[in-house]
């Protein structure tokens, strides 16, 4: 049985550093699979116009396709070309909750994320996705600076 590491990507530099770190660990472990996760921030409790609702289904497909083509697919390809087993997932919802859910569902050994890229009031009020993950995750979390 191989070890599984869940890596949270956000299309930014900090996500890439998390991925680099995960690859270094994978190399040390040997038999290891990387699960790359991109979460599109979404809540079922927002307020939208009727027009936005009518177009939502199509917009969601676009968002998923974009996340795959811009972030997840190139990252998976790069990791695989480095000789690791890897797969990618794109999900809608809360970052901290979903990274934890995927990791628990896959029976992973740990989660690797970059330091949060959010700033300003939102982070002060709600905390960053990274700190929420660290607080609530059910398995070890590595935060890469």
């Amino acid at each position: 049985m191989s070890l599984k590491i869940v890596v949270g990507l956000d299309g930014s530099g900090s996500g890439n550093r998390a991925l680099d770190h995960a690859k270094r660990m994978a190399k040390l472990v040997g038999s290891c699979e990387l699960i790359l996760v991109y979460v599109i921030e979404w809540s079922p409790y927002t307020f939208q116009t009727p027009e936005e609702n009518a177009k939502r289904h199509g917009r969601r497909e676009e968002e998923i396709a974009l996340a795959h083509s811009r972030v997840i697919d190139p990252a998976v390809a790069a990791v695989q070309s480095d000789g690791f087993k890897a797969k990618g997932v794109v999900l809608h919802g809360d970052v901290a909750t979903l990274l934890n859910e995927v990791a628990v569902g896959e029976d992973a050994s740990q989660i690797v994320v970059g330091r949060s890229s959010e700033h300003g009031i939102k982070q002060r009020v709600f905390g960053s996705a990274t700190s929420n993950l660290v607080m609530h995750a059910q398995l070890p979390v590595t935060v890469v600076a």
Partner: protein
Amino acid sequence: MKNYKLAALTGLTALMSAPAAFAGIDESVNAAFAKVTGPFVSLIFSPFPGTNFPWIVGWLVVAATVFSVYFAFIQFRAFRLSISIVKGDYSDPNDAGEVSHFQALATALSGTVGLGNIAGVAVAVGIGGPGATFWMILAGLLGMASKFTECTLGVKYRNEYADGTVSGGPMYYISKGFAERGVPGGKFMAVLFSIFCILGALGGGNMFQANQAHAQISGVLGEYPGWITGVIFAGVVFAVIVGGIKSIARVTEKVVPFMGVMYVGAALIILIVNADQIGWAIGQIFNGAFTGLGVAGGMVGALIQGFKRAAFSNEAGVGSAAIAHAAVRTKEPITEGLVSLLEPFIDTVVICTMTALVITISGALIVDPATGNYMLNEAGSAIATVGDVSGVGLTSAAFATGFSWFPFVLAIAVILFAFSTMISWSYYGLKAWTYLFGEGQGKELTFKIIFCIFVVIGAAANLGPVIDFSDAAIFAMAVVNITALYFLMPVVKRELESFMSRIKSGEIKKFKH
């Protein structure tokens, strides 16, 4: 070129130096409008022969009662289940990112919660007395079953296009549902509904909103011609629906729920402060419901006003909500029907009742000390009020007895409510328009421009003709929609029974979240 500039300049100075001309524009708009809409209004509101009870009010209440009985009072049986569905207990996590039940409900609510709850209730209580509240609540409770029926059908028979967009509403369930059941005339009725829906969008969803927004603004800032408010509103609406400036709509959609909570909060505080009078106010509501307490039209007047305003406020049976609810992501159309039945509850049973209680307790309605009954105004058409106010002005005055600054907040709330209702109805109207004329940018633009022009007319006209036309157009939608619902309600029953039995058997389970 120079000539144009000169002409523009002369025009501008003329506008600035002739305030009398402003009033002239308002007057002529008003007269022309009342003349054009008069016959349509009289037809819809004609009373049953030998009575003064409008047939249309009976039509709505009978329908709501039929649906309540036919679905064995689903609004009470499934109330907890509805809340559980809105919370997302039955939503598949794999559908995250799609339109949730909560979002569909919130969107539909922002189309209905608005001036009907603030101004409409004041009109009802002003004419029909506090007793109108009783009938309003009853109509709201029964209306939950109408809403349930139409929104289930809205999802079941919606169109899903290749680009991922969805279109639903009465015009789709009438044409598809009738064809499926082999009932003739579906296409004709769908077209008829679309025509009335466009009129409703221009009336209640537009002119009434612009009109009352102007009344509120001029109440705070001082009198000025209505068409100025109209032009400003039309400009902003234009920017959103034609210019595609989503940020304005997005801000509104976020501020409106906040305003709604604040409105209910303020009403609650006023009620708590006057807690000793709540018993008396409820007494007034019950007494008034059956005796009329001497208001215009007596008990029947209270009943008609209560039913009318409830229907106008929560739109149950009208069919508009079915358009808004159709966008939800669900495999079970019935779940959206169940969610939608919360709408008349929140809108009418909670928010409208708050307004009515605050108006009753505030003492804004003048009581004759000799008889203990309400005094009529000089014209004898409504209850005399302190400061001779009506509509949104009455609500504003009533809330001002609790918080002197509240009229300012209410002015902002009214503007935002009016605006969000306009945005919603511009979409309902547009859906009806494209059903009639087909999709296409040019066709859509035509409707959107007409919509903006009606904002100006609505702000400039008097409340009387505007409210009459708005009611008439919206109720005309209900005539077609409810007829269709009678034919299609067995479809809903089948869906409901299948869903309930699968919940009972455990086939449909709550998802772990």
